[in-house]
């Protein structure tokens, strides 16, 4: 082999530079420096300081200017950096904008411009957790902390490049070498063999018995000596590898029951091809295993669907179609569950203990909302991440006004009653103002003061009502005015020590109007209490700035109030779409349960991960309550009747929460029910408890719990786990998810899917144009795919894609975890969710997606919808269509090329 090729398995440095390696990576590999590691450490320290969200005591100054400038200011004066010999200040003095700095550094490093893009990609991939966080923040315009302390990838890269340059130049000085691009390329071109030896040595892949010899030769600096040694080394390493591989082929042959003579009796060409084939298969091995897993799962699933359909056809001559069960004296109870895999077990057991008909629907029940929880200072989006909520729902405690019907009344109460509420001593100006000035998603109060307040609130939240009806414009204006008046009163009290009793309404209004710049001139207050014009001006200014009584804020408050709630028509539209989507448009029982899910566990920074993914990571009860409340409204039902969905007057929707850690189901808003319904509700509660216990027993087996003698014991055990803060695995969550079935419950009712399948109810017969299926494919399917692949990669490499062991996690900045003190921001799922000890619990396979619908309909939708099409064609999900019109299961195989992609096989399906 000639020296120009890459005989020892490493690609030539010249090729890897800028594509897989940065300049300092190359320096590290060639000269044993540790620039990459040092860079990461210094950078992470700076990032942790900048991104802190109130966790640490020290706060980095100047963060408002953005990541680059704030960091630069600190770095310039950082004595520790200077002590390391890094002249970061000299570099920073040359540019004051991140783009300029990037341009400067890249030029100084000598990287040719057409390689910048890939060089930058390598740089950004180094700490992909932190970089991913910056990237997210840059587009999260409404994230409070991003508004306050902005950061984007350009800033981030500029900081990285500055550190890299300083470290590289420093190393270059110490090594007395030029480590810039042209010089390194020249070095690689002039001394290719030396490069290979150096890289082997520093990478630790060198043959141990050669290590010392190579070191000595390199130190000698004698090119002839190095070249000679290289030839010897290359020959030796090649031979050894060849022998190793030869041995392995023999091992394989032996395992296959072939003897050596049979193997070696082949001619050279054949053996050559076989060895090539083995190499090719090894490169493809992961995919082969994965496809085997998928094949097995698909095979089993189709066989069981087929068998179940056969049984059903034999057992019941006229099986009623889903959604049209004849109502008995008590009638069936319908229950809507989230598509989450954890619902599958519970649904199965519930259907077994009583006359229940269950449906699967995305956990936000089709109602995307931004939710302001009482006592929390921010909005949370309760819908899948692919959807942006446009409407706000607010929670107000009962204690304020039991009979207040609307947000308007309640808000009135809150504003006027501030003194008397339990919150009064703690409600800051900002808190109240922000109540009506909230931003979409993620804005928080002044965190320190707010958090102290929060901790002092009673641990149990007072019962609260959800408000989701629209305010009229007049109501909104009056609310804002009331709020402003209240602010004025507080301001006067603080500034002039004049109590409310001494103020008249006209005085208050006058002050308000002055702050809003609707009038000028001396105010009655000033006249009455002898405040001079200067003092008055200062006070008005304070009203405007501190107390937020100003025209801009008023406009913002009105805009936000306008976002609260849904009009009745919209309510009916959303409820109707949801019901049609799952095929429940007739045959309503007297009770319809709407079951969201959540998870309770202490000391679990991943509590969010265990909550409802379709709800943006928060508890699913809010959406359930709103859906149920809407569906119970008379006006909404009238509008639904016009749509062709007739909900009987006796039918009542009841929201509930399924705690996936304890499998308890708690009904909510019971006080809204008529007394006649209460007996029914008791029966339902009993059934839910029984089903919950059976589910807990199943899960205990999966969790490896021993000594469980009964379902009751199982329920107690899982409850204990939920409350135990030392428990690192309160539940398996969505681990082991494997499939997504979109179709009628009839398809899966008799199957035990082992808690591994997402289930979305869908009735193709009411969806000729495919509009409902389109919603499922562009929403819930994407969410499920994300869940599936998050688990896939978190299990195949828990250190790189997952977050490692929870035991070593440290919360950083209140938004993420790192391992130990300084590490990349950990992404993905922790080891305890993916593995049992060291053995993978989750089986990494792509989501086996089953759609019960005519093939032509699915093909038409795929042709129309960009993202689902991309996912199917590129093999991110494994699609199979059960075509009821032809009785064929059509399996899509992306490896078969477009024309033969669909592989049919016959299958029996429910009527």
């Amino acid at each position, binding site marked *: 082999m000639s020296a120009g090729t890459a005989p020892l398995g490493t690609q030539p440095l010249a090729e890897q530079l800028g594509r897989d390696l940065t300049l300092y990576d190359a320096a590290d590999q060639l000269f044993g420096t540790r620039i990459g590691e040092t860079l990461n450490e210094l950078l992470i320290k700076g990032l942790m300081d900048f991104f802190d969200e109130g966790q640490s005591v020290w706060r980095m100054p100047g963060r408002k200017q953005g990541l680059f400038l704030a960091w630069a200011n600190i770095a310039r004066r950082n004595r520790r950096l200077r002590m390391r010999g890094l002249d970061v200040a000299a570099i920073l003095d040359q540019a004051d904008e991140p783009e300029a700095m990037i341009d400067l550094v890249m030029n100084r490093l000598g990287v040719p411009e057409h390689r910048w893009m890939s060089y930058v990609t390598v740089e950004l991939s180094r700490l992909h957790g932190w*970089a991913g966080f910056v990237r997210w923040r840059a587009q999260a315009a409404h994230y409070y902390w991003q508004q306050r302390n902005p950061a984007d990838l350009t800033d981030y890269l500029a900081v990285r490049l500055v550190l890299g340059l300083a470290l590289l130049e420093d190393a270059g000085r110490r090594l007395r070498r030029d480590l810039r691009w042209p010089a390194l390329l020249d070095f690689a071109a002039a001394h290719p063999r030396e490069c290979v030896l150096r890289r082997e040595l520093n990478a630790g892949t060198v043959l141990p018995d050669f290590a010392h010899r190579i070191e000595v030769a390199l130190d000698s600096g004698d090119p002839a000596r190095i070249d000679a040694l290289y030839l010897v080394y290359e020959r030796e390493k090649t031979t050894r590898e060849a022998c*190793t591989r*030869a041995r392995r082929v023999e091992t394989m042959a032996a395992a296959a029951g072939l003897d050596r003579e049979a193997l070696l009796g082949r001619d050279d060409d054949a053996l050559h091809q076989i060895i090539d084939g*083995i190499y090719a298969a090894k490169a493809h091995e992961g995919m*082969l295993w994965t496809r085997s897993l998928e094949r097995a799962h698909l095979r089993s699933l189709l066989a069981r669907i087929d068998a179940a359909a056969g049984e059903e056809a034999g057992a019941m001559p006229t099986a009623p179609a889903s959604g049209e069960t004849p109502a008995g004296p008590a009638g069936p109870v319908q229950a809507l569950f989230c598509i989450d895999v954890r619902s599958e077990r519970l649904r199965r057991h519930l259907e077994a203990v009583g006359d229940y008909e269950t449906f699967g629907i995305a956990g936000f029940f089709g109602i995307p909302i931004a939710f302001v929880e009482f006592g929390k200072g921010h909005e949370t989006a309760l819908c899948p991440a692919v959807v942006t909520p446009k409407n706000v729902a607010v929670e107000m405690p009962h204690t304020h006004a039991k009979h207040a019907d609307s947000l308007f009344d309640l808000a009135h109460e809150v504003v006027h009653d501030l003194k008397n509420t339990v919150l009064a001593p703690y409600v800051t100006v900002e808190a109240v103002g922000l109540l009506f000035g909230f931003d979409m998603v993620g804005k928080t109060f002044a965190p320190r003061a707010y958090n102290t307040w929060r901790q002092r609130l009673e641990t149990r939240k007072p019962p609260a009502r959800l408000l989701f009806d629209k305010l009229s414009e007049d109501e909104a204006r009056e609310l804002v005015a009331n709020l402003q008046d209240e602010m004025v009163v507080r301001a006067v009290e603080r500034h002039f020590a004049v109590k409310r009793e001494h103020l008249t309404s006209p005085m208050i209004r006058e002050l308000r109007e002055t702050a809003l710049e609707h009038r000028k001139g001396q105010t009655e207050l000033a006249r009455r209490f002898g405040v001079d014009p200067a003092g008055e001006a200062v006070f008005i200014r304070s009203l405007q700035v501190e107390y937020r009584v100003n025209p801009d804020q008023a406009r913002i408050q009105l805009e936000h109030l306008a976002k609260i709630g849904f009009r009745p028509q919209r309510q009916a539209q959303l409820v109707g779409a949801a019901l049609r989507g799952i095929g429940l448009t007739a045959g309503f029982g007297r009770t319809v349960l709407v079951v969201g899910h959540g998870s309770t566990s202490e000391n679990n920074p991943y509590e969010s991960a265990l909550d409802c993914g379709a709800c*943006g*990571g928060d508890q699913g009860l809010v959406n359930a309550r709103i859906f149920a409340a809407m569906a119970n409204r008379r006006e909404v039902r009238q509008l639904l009747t016009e749509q062709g969905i007739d909900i009987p007057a006796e039918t009542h929707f009841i929201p509930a929460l399924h705690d996936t850690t304890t499998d308890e189901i708690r009904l909510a808003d019971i006080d809204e029910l008529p007394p006649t319904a209460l007996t029914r509700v008791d029966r339902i509660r009993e059934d839910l408890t029984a089903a919950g216990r059976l589910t807990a027993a199943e899960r205990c087996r999966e969790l490896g719990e021993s000594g469980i003698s009964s379902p009751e014991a199982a329920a107690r055990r899982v409850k204990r786990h939920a409350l135990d803060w030392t428990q690192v695995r309160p539940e398996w969550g969505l681990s082991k998810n494997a499939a997504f079935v979109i179709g009628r419950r009839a398809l899966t009712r008799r199957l035990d899917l082992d808690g591994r399948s997402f289930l979305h109810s869908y009735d193709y017969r009411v969806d000729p144009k495919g509009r409902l299926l389109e919603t499922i494919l562009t929403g819930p399917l994407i969410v499920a795919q*994300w869940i599936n*692949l998050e688990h896939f990669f978190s299990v*195949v490499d828990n250190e790189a894609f997952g977050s490692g062991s929870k035991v070593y996690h440290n919360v950083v900045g209140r938004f993420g975890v790192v391992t130990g003190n300084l590490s990349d921001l950990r992404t993905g799922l922790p080891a305890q969710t993916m593995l049992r000890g060291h053995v993978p619990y989750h089986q990494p396979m792509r989501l086996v997606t089953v759609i019960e619908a005519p093939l032509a309909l699915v093909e038409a939708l795929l042709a129309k919808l960009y993202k689902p099409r991309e996912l199917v064609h590129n093999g991110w999900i494994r699609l199979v269509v059960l075509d009821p019109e032809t009785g064929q299961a059509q399996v899509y195989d992306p490896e078969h090329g477009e024309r033969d992609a669909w592989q049919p096989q016959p299958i029996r399906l429910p009527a």
Partner: protein
Amino acid sequence: MTNAVFDKAAGAASDARGQADADVPAAAAGSAPGADGKHRPALGKKLKIRSMVSVAGEVLPFFWPMRNFIHHNPLHGLEHLPFEDAVAEATRLFHARGWLPRPAYQRMLADGAMQPDDLAAEIDAFVATWLADQDDDGDAAHGEVAALLRELLLAMMTATSQPSPGDREPCAEEVLACLRRGGQG
């Protein structure tokens, strides 16, 4: 007069031009230091850099703050590629493994998560496709090679352990045996 800019064809041409300027470092054209001595590139250059960073960063998965943790595909930025290619690219970029080590799959096989027939079917399909892609020598040779290859691969995957990178522990005896075999295989 309207010009269509950024037609893909034009884009490809300017790419090639860039290649020709291979090892010439970018000249700091139009970006002389300003009056305050600071480096100030032209507006177009600055925008181009910002754009470049943004596009380069698309391969990074978003990181949501933990409070709002939701599952996402870490390879979301690579969904325009076929799955296997995307995994190869991601593992290269992030220095990660894209698949479990062989023993993990063997254990799943033993536990019944898949059957030997499933694996055999996948191997068969692979061998058939792979051989078809090679030069067509003759079906007879293919048939024999195919059969042998299938058996060896099945044995490799189900009955042998996976060599870890850098697994080189030859002893003298085996080196000799290798040499005696005449080098091949």
